[in-house]
């Protein structure tokens, strides 16, 4: 396990709250604005997920699809994703950083070169939506060599066999997809999520972060009561499309992020941990 990510979860546990994990697509809406937004979100989160834009984001809802399209239209290249990552790392030495995206971008570069660049830029982990444990043979060795955790997903459809598979093949944390659907959809029944997350926690030593569908501070507070981390993605990304100019984006993102921060840290996990 990458040391920085494990330290993030140790620190959160010590402070008695769940980790706040924030997502933005790199280069959305343009590289310069994206740098400011990523830095602002990094200030408020324990772990930052930096999305690598892709032409065919099959697991994403309209909000993150549009973010990918804006970034690609702005001419964002994979090299820009690495330099944005590096820029955040320089000012945030303790932040956990996860590069998130789809298989074809790292595959086109070659996983060895991709992992080398990601490590060099300061990333701690990689989450590839469409590489399940069964297909890890194409990337696992390269990620391991470059000390990158491989974040695997679990979902409501994951059987015990799949929970074991993710525990054995993943590292860093488990990303639990709270709903059967795409990013930004409506969060499901909190009790079902709690039951599944508690079950996964009982089967795995890894921290479990819950994402997809967390849009309000109230939901974040609910999830923070039992999860080791709360992932907020589409809600932050939607600040970009809804604001009227770049200054407004930054202001509303900072506002949203600090509300989410408050929501997550307001819950003491000391009793449930």
């Amino acid at each position: 396990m990458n040391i920085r990510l494990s330290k993030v979860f140790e620190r959160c546990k010590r402070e008695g709250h769940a980790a706040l994990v924030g997502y933005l697509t790199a280069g959305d809406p343009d590289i310069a604005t994206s740098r400011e937004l990523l830095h602002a979100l990094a200030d408020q989160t324990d772990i930052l997920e930096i999305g690598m834009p892709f032409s065919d984001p099959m697991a994403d809802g309209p909000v993150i699809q549009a973010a990918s399209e804006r970034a690609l239209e702005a001419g964002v290249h994979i090299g820009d994703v690495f330099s944005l990552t590096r820029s955040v790392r320089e000012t945030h030495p303790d932040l956990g950083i996860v590069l998130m995206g789809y298989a074809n971008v790292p595959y086109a570069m070659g996983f060895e070169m991709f992992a080398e660049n990601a490590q060099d830029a300061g990333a701690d982990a990689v989450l590839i939506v469409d590489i399940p444990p069964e297909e890890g043979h194409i990337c696992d060795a390269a990620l391991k060599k470059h000390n990158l955790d491989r974040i695997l997903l679990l979902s409501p459809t994951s059987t015990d066999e799949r929970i074991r598979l993710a525990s054995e093949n993943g590292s860093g944390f488990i990303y639990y997809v709270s709903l059967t659907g795409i990013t930004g959809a409506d969060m499901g029944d909190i009790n079902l999520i709690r039951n599944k997350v508690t079950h996964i926690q009982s089967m795995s030593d890894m921290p479990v972060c819950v994402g997809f569908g967390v849009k309000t501070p109230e939901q974040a507070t609910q999830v923070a009561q039992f999860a080791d981390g709360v992932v907020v993605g589409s809600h932050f990304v939607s600040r970009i499309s809804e604001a009227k100019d770049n200054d407004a984006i930054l202001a509303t993102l900072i506002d949203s992020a600090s509300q989410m921060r408050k929501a997550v840290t307001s819950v003491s996990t000391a009793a449930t941990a």
Partner: protein
Amino acid sequence: MNASFQHTDFASMYDLEIKHPPDAGGHFGRFGGRFAAETLMQPLKEIEEAFFDAWNDDAFHAERLQLLENYVGRATPLYHAERLSRRIGGAQIYLKREDLTHTGAHKINNTIGQGLLARRMGKKRVIAETGAGQHGVATATVAAMFGMDCDIYMGREDIARQMPNVLRMRLLGANVIPVDSGTATLKDAVNEALRNWVASCENTFYIFGTAAGPHPYPLLVRQFHTVIGQEARAQILKQAGRLPDVAVACVGGGSNAMGLLHPFRDDESVRLVAVEAAGYGLSTGKHAASLAAGKAGILHGNLTFLLEDEEGQVTGTHSISAGLDYPGVGPELAFMLEEGRLQLDAATDDEALEALQLLTRSEGIIPALESSHALAAGARIAKTMHSNQIVLINLSGRGDKDMNTVFKHLGWLENES
């Protein structure tokens, strides 16, 4: 088997052994696999298990083959196109007449199979992507027959150029859902269908239209279409007394190509030719020839050849034929190409249009624009051969749906675009 067949030898024509299967993970060499989101991994495994369970069940095949005979109209004829052959002046051309199936294209072979699987799994709703609309129509048809709800995802661009098929789907009771994301063509329709399926997999079966996608779809679609090649093989042996020298099929994702070519894979004397859409020409970059001009990549659940830029962003494609307008290709075709078993050819938009007219005028058969690509390349190959040799071409669909496109290109209709 106890179903009633009109021809007693009908069912015995088919070999139900699964030849050249992928490995347990669905890999054909380095291609294929199951590159899917976690939520879909369990549903895909369930389809895989249901498929193998069904394939080993005589009752499943009895019902499937009975429907193929009495509903679809199989076996489709193998037609010796003598006038066309003389006109080209080379090998004898035989056409496998998939255009004569119910709904007018080979696609129904697969939707019957997957529809039966869906019913077997207790799913009440089916979804599908479609490009030219042929797979959408075939899916809507089966949904109507089995009494299932049906949503078809179709790029807005394709809806505009294939309106007759859109209306047919509506008439059959399906919802046609326009897709505006990305390039608004087939690949985006697949993305949208996948997004819906992630949210609905509990009650919904995704009837995938081509021999691509995550395991088990490439295997499943191939198996349901091998009736084409198995029939053709038996028919040519009967009619000509020997195997063809060349077998030719067009390739978008690869369903009709796998259907015709796969049963000849072990016949070493038969050259297998896959014809891709060269659009405005391979050198223009505006085409859909992923085998000829693509590189290995991962999209829609499988590792295969893709048209993409140097950073792995999937690029838009161009073909006059909506059914070939796809930036990927089935993983088994990619494997057969690397293995050296498959030969590549390509036909431009113009060549396909010419071939369409040539067949229409010489034989009175109006082929689909997709199939016209196979005809164009097949005719070119036949011309270099001797008159006692045989070229077998898959006439995968009929041309009715393409008449607007063709008339516009011929200048018979005012060009609106």
